[in-house]
């Protein structure tokens, strides 16, 4: 692998055959049809999320639909447009696992925000009881 990459890098000016082999090995070649299907789905999902707001859906239904459409769109973009679906697991895990730490951060900050809100309600309310 490393050898092939070196050939491509070091002999950039040389024949197209060396680069073509690199492109074959490292490039991502998939049918255009697949991209079009994903593209259409992204449009449909965006329209759905807009309609959630347009029809004034509220409460749990609103949150769950918004998050569902968001995750589906993000998944389609990363998996197909960014080719993560076809990359080896070593890269996939290296890139996709660390952001999960953000979710822990979210949990911590939800607790923190609740605490701040309770303190504000208790000490800064116009009519404390």
């Amino acid at each position, binding site marked *: *692998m*490393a050898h092939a*990459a070196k050939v*491509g*890098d070091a*002999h*950039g*000016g*040389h024949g*197209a055959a060396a*680069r073509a082999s*690199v*492109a074959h090995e*490292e490039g*991502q*070649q*998939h049918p*255009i049809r697949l*991209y*079009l299907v994903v*593209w259409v789905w*992204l*449009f449909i999902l*965006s329209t759905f*999320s*807009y309609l959630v*707001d*347009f029809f*004034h859906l509220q409460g749990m239904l609103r949150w769950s639909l*918004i*998050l569902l*459409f*968001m995750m589906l*769109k*993000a998944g389609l*973009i*990363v998996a197909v*447009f*960014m*080719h993560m679906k076809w*990359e*080896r697991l*070593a*890269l996939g895990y*290296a*890139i996709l696992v*660390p*952001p999960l730490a*953000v979710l822990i*951060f*979210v949990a911590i*900050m*939800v607790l*923190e*925000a*609740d605490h*701040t*809100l309770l303190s*504000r309600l208790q000490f*800064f309310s116009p009519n404390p009881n």
Partner: protein
Amino acid sequence: MEGIAQTQAAQRPGGMEGFVADWSSDQRAFKNVSWGKAMMWIFLLSDTFVFGCFLLSYMTVRMSTRVPWPNPSEVFALEIFGTHMPLILIAIMTFVLITSSGTMAMAVNCGYRRDRGRTAILLVVTALLGATFVGMQAFEWTKLIHEGVRPWGNPWGAEQFGSAFFMITGFHGTHVTIGVIFLLIVARKVWRGDYDDGRPGFFTSRGGRYEIVEITGLYWHFVDLVWVFIFALFYLW
């Protein structure tokens, strides 16, 4: 065996040069993935944390304020031909950005098929759609600033709305702008045939190859990806 190993160790350069050589010597964790692509992914990971922290602080200030949050659906509504359309500008911006992601994916595909003309045209179309997005964002900022939205206050509710809005959309808009510039640079190189004859880049002096289109594409799709989260969490929430 030991002798050979010692000879090899002796031949390796010392000092700073040796430090760099040892850390970069044929030790490759990400097979099939070139150095440039791996580095772009790692950069995108770090950028994920930056945007993650912005959205996180937005969540924190929104959850912890006693003052009602301004309704984004109404704040970003427009009157179009006398019809009141909630959030319509943001919806159009979303569609423009998704369309540009589609043309970008096509450009990567055409690049690997060595279709020079189509790749360049698709890259320029992607850049134009990106510029359209930034233009609409500038319009949105102008409208809101005229209505009195400031980082420290606004006419409708919680003061934190303005700071979160300008910070998050401003940082995203900057990313789109940088992306547009890079797309135009890459489009010019494709058009000139740099990636067909391996002409070295002026900055990296590495031979040009069509993989650069894919790496630029990764950045562009990431910008679209971030917008998916901003659209859901800031505008629809």
